[in-house]
């Protein structure tokens, strides 16, 4: 029985998907560009804004493309970016 249950096709609409929530602590950023350059999905880009340290912090191009790999969080030398997965039903 259990095996049958496991084989049932997944209803994509009913699965809780994780939606990325990218937090950028702008004034902590020193503008090294590691997060922008090494994001595998090119989710980030340099913004035009100038922060408290006189550099351009990253901004999110499209959060939907984020695969929540957290590489940006891990490679940031300044603890200025982190990503959280928010659970939500389709369309949030």
């Amino acid at each position, binding site marked *: 029985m259990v095996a049958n249950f496991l084989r049932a096709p997944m209803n994509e609409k009913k699965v809780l998907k994780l939606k990325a929530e990218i937090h950028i602590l702008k004034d902590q950023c*020193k503008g*090294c560009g590691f997060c922008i350059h090494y994001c595998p999905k090119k989710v980030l880009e340099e913004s035009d804004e100038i922060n408290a340290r006189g550099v351009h912090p990253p901004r999110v191009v499209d959060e939907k493309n984020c695969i929540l790999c957290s590489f940006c969080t891990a*490679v940031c*030398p300044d603890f200025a970016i982190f990503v959280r997965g928010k659970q939500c039903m389709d369309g949030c």
Partner: protein
Amino acid sequence: MAGAFEHPFAVYLRAAMIPHIWCSGCGNGVILNAFIHALDELRMDLDKFVVVSGIGCIGRTAGYTNVDSFHTTHGRAIPFATGVKLAKPELEVVVISGDGDLFAIGGNHFIHAARRNIGIKVICANNFNYGMTGGQVGPTTPLEALTTTTPYGNVEHPFNLVHLATASGATYVARWTTLHVRMLTMSIKKLLQRKGFSFIEVVSPCPEIYGRRNNMRTGLEMMEWFRKASVIANFSDPAKAEITPEKIVVGEFVDIEKPTYEQLLYGKIAKIVKKE
């Protein structure tokens, strides 16, 4: 949120000391980040945890980590750590320091701590120079590299740190660059779980003082060098893992077990006490 700023790792940092002083694109921050990540994943008991650093840019780490820590004199991080470990063997003692601190002025301490297999863990930020004092040549500066004291190119052969650590008797030896943050975090987790003398060399960008004299003006350019030159070769011969502009061999080199100094010492004392 527990820290003074909003970041999942804020609790592991001394809020008053953050933002840190390290330059933009400096690898020290990446090493600190990976170290905290490993602590977080292992859910280490921070009351039994001590961080010891020497002097240098990376030496600031002792002041940034929100655990009991010592910022010691230049070159003497390992002697301090040895003292802590022998006085209280139940503590987890980690030395995070620089290539100059650990292998120039502190070189003897390193080889003998490894030889004795004292159960301390050593992470070296190898940025190829003395960053803090203005970029002088050091024991890991590559041949021909330009530094403030080698303006015509370095003529000294550098240490191959993973070979040195292996030959001295370290029981865990690995090398990663700051681009290999995932492997580095995995390796730090292993280092923290080993009993004996364990060592990780992290090849790290110092764009401000070293990189810009060697055609790599930014941290990103140095990271790109690491990306192009790195070759992962786990458990390959550390003697052949020299760092050259063309090739940086990374990976784990040693993972063995043998009795630690503190086990042998306290075992011996217990036997003598029993006899008397």
